[in-house]
């Protein structure tokens, strides 16, 4: 059974009304139980939990300390191409926008990799628009083989592939798969993805299944916060994470919390997520999934990121560039979105240290995959 079958049992409106029906008592039960169920997650995401955010934060802090210690794992994105055949309304790479587009050559990728490596990173996330003609799977395989020299962990955030294609990537040295459903709301999904392969909700929904079957060590999921009601999307993300943990029990599941950022096209989020909501969401996930990685990127502003460190976050990017060639090339193409925290990785690491945490640059070894 894939998640596409599992999700059939859950209706968006039904889940929404279940969340909004939660009471303070439900929240207290969810807060002070030992083992939390999906129903507890609904309570923690509900409006009734808002007065309990401090209690949630305290618990989230305690659990994270216990399970992860005082560490933040650092990673950097490396954009390979901003060419794309999709027309996602919120994305700067939308194929209908006239932007400066580029696919990096292998030489240019090495230049970027050297630069990122010098910054201290050993975990890299390869990002690309959906353009199989410009960057076919074979290219990613070659890139991974080259980048193994520089990094101890390589993850990808690219267009969805088949199980066999994922297997070839794993063989080439890729160990992590990031794939966001963007929203679990089918109607919104169709609205914001008017054309291109990405329009296929189910193909995207079952991508983590294919990644899990292929054997990725890390599966990273999430929704784009701002597209739909974050509480309901949060509930579905939790369901998806729980399913993946059980189905692909050897893969580590992590959750990202990307809020929509300004990008070419000027898309305005219909359901903006404020800081308080983001904190509630992150704490709810830490309480629900004590061992999952929780990721926050440079989409978020400096001050907020600093404050999120003790609340359950385990991974952070820093000094990110969201355009192909953004790190090392003088002339680089246009970016996917504006980042918010513009500090250098060194400065972010300093702040982490000052907060009493240890920035961890290497927490994986390519030897796990193929030596």
């Amino acid at each position, binding site marked *: 059974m894939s998640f596409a079958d599992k999700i059939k049992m859950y209706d968006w409106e039904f889940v929404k009304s279940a969340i909004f029906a939660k009471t303070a008592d439900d929240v207290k039960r969810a807060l002070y139980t030992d083992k939390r169920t999906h129903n507890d997650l609904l309570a923690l995401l509900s409006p009734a939990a808002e007065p309990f955010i401090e209690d949630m934060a305290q618990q989230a802090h305690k659990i994270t*300390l*216990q*399970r*992860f*210690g*005082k*560490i933040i794992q650092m990673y950097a994105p490396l954009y390979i191409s901003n060419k794309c055949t999709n027309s996602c309304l919120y994305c700067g790479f939308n194929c209908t926008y006239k932007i400066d587009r580029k696919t990096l050559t292998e030489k240019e990728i090495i230049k970027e990799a050297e630069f990122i490596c010098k910054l201290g990173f*050993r975990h890299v996330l390869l990002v690309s628009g959906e353009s199989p003609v410009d960057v076919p799977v074979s290219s990613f395989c070659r890139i991974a083989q080259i980048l193994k020299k520089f990094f*101890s962990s390589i993850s990808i955030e690219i267009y969805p592939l088949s199980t066999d294609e994922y297997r070839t990537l794993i063989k080439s040295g890729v160990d992590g798969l990031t794939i966001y459903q963007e929203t679990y709301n089918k109607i919104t999904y169709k609205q914001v993805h008017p054309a291109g392969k990405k329009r296929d909700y189910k193909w995207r929904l079952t991508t983590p299944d294919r990644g899990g079957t292929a054997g990725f*060590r890390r599966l990273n999921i999430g929704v784009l916060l701002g597209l739909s009601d974050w509480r309901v999307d949060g509930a579905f993300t939790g369901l998806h994470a729980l399913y993946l*943990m059980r189905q692909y*029990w*050897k*893969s*580590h599941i992590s959750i990202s919390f990307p809020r929509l950022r300004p990008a070419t096209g000027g898309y305005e989020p219909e359901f903006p997520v404020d800081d308080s909501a983001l904190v509630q969401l992150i704490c709810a996930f830490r309480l629900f999934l004590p*061992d999952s990685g929780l990721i926050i990127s440079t989409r978020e502003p400096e001050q907020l990121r600093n404050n999120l460190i003790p609340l359950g976050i385990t991974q952070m990017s820093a000094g990110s560039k969201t355009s192909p060639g953004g790190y090392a090339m003088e002339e680089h193409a246009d970016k996917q979105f504006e980042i918010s925290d513009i500090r250098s990785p060194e400065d972010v690491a300093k702040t982490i*240290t000052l907060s*009493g*945490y*240890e920035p*961890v640059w*290497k*927490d*994986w*070894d390519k*030897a*796990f995959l193929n*030596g």
Partner: protein
Amino acid sequence: MSNLRSLKIAGRTFESRLLMGTGKFPSNDIMKNALAASGTEIVTVALRRADLSNPNDNIIGAIDTNRYLLLPNTSGARDADEAVRLARISRAAGCEPWIKLEITPDPYYLLPDPVETLKAAEILVKEGFIVLPYINADPILAKRLEDAGTATVMPLGAPIGTNRGLKTADSIRIIIEQVQIPVVVDAGLGAPSHASEAMEMGADAVLVNTAIAVASDPIGMARAFRLGVEAGFTAYTAGLGEEKIQAEASSPLTGFLRNDS
């Protein structure tokens, strides 16, 4: 367990019976001071955290190898192949051939895979490694590993990082009774009293990480575990009194009947 004052593993002698892990510390300085305060002589490091090709690597650099035996571990390995590969890389990078074998296919409870652990232990022992396998408290597996030639067995008290103490006490007792290699209780010890309890039961040593690393004062907690281990070991060698249900007076009332005078 032997009654020798020192702990002997694979022919090497250690005065401390507390092994320490290096994960989860808020900084390398705190870790360094905690290691010193614990009195430990064996320090385990996850190979996946260490950059062996880099002499300035922050975690390896923080461990004084003149003072501590650096015990690389295969944490993160899902099967025997991966663990063996990691062990070989560590030896090729110049580490001593000691390896703490951890094979934990499930990333949440991090419980050890008995089948893969035995398989990897057999291979590594043949290749000349000194193997310290992390296992569930399974007495038969412990015997199988001893037969395979491992230097110790390291049964868990409770899942890693849970601080739940000796949940597996009954099985650990059987292991202590049956194996002739050192038994190091490895995971789940959350308080110095847990460490004491393990030592009182006759464990040869304990390994502690989370309970020290995430304490508000890791250095103070390291000292506390040192004392806990020493107290438990001393009590074990001094000979603990038998547990009884009924009270038995320290000065019996009928003592005079056995008195000649």
